[in-house]
């Protein structure tokens, strides 16, 4: 019996793909945002609201990740921007390989700003970089008051957190300020904005916090 040294990383391939995606996007002057968050937190609604505010100034594209349907892709198309749908089947998050396939379907010269809606899931996407320049986590008041405390890996990575469905805060007796404090404990440099995906309240502030090209 003898020992064979290996020393290889299990997730290296994904990282290589993520780096390639990042370079491809950067080379084409595209700024890409990975939009993550629980099922139904309001990711698609917030992307739509941002598009409404920016589409006259920026050429926007969207990649919509979903298990099986095209519902979100159709909703985004209503805003008149190009959408590529990734159906992940049974996979619980996007990976850089899937994203690469989607990116190459766009005419990259026609896009300045790319939103990549990840699969609704507050856990798995945190372990899997896809090559975006920025990470936006959309979470919502209706998920209860402990979301940020309960999911540190996701919130520690976030550049910006949108606390959505603020219209429910009062009914649910939840304080938005407490979320802000929870976030500052685990990720002091992350930005925090309260939003309403139905009315667009807070979305202008969100765009400013994210420093999106305007």
């Amino acid at each position, binding site marked *: *019996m*003898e*020992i*064979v*040294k*290996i*020393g*290889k*990383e*299990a*997730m290296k*391939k*994904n990282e290589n793909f993520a780096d390639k995606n990042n370079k491809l996007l950067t080379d084409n002057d595209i700024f890409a945002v990975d939009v993550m968050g629980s099922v139904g937190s309001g990711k698609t609604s917030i992307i739509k609201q941002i598009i409404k505010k920016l589409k006259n100034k920026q050429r926007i594209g969207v990649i919509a990740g979903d298990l099986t349907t095209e519902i979100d892709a159709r909703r985004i198309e209503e805003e008149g921007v190009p959408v590529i749908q990734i159906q992940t089947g049974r*996979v*619980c*998050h996007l*990976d850089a390989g899937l994203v690469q396939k989607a990116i190459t379907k766009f005419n990259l010269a026609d896009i300045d700003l790319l939103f990549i809606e990840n699969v609704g899931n507050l*856990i*798995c996407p*945190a*372990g*899997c970089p896809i090559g975006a320049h920025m990470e936006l986590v959309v979470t919502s008041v209706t998920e209860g008051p402990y979301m940020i*405390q309960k999911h*540190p*890996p996701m919130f*520690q990575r976030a550049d910006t957190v949108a606390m959505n469905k603020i219209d429910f805060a009062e009914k649910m007796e939840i304080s938005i300020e407490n979320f802000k404090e929870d976030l500052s*404990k*685990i*990720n*002091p*440099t992350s930005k925090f904005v309260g939003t309403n995906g139905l009315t667009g309240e807070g979305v202008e502030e969100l765009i400013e916090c994210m420093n999106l090209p305007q």
Partner: protein
Amino acid sequence: MHEFTAVKNIINIILKAARDNNAEKIYSIKIGIGELTMLEKNQIQYWLKLMLDEIDIAKNSKLNLHIIKGVIRCQECNFKGPLESTMELNHLFPVIKCPECESNNIEIIKGDRCLVEEMEVDKYNESISGGDN
């Protein structure tokens, strides 16, 4: 189930190393799982075991999984060392900030990888396998 992706990659790495080294039997496999990865050790152990037992040369091999502690370098105060698990928030997951100055402007030096480190094998007798061709 992102562990499944990791397990698939681990199996590919093991089988390639076995081929490259003329291994005919794998006795044990040593894998380090960084505490800052999103991978859960017990789940990796479970899936890896199930899959390895389907592969002839790896059947009944022993899995040695260990956790690699997180080590960081602080960009603010230059602290270099292990992360501290804060129990304040009741996390199993360590809080990624500098234990000295609390900054989260840090570079992760160790603990964010899942590493297939080594394995114990029997190799084909080189001269015999060479003679076969």
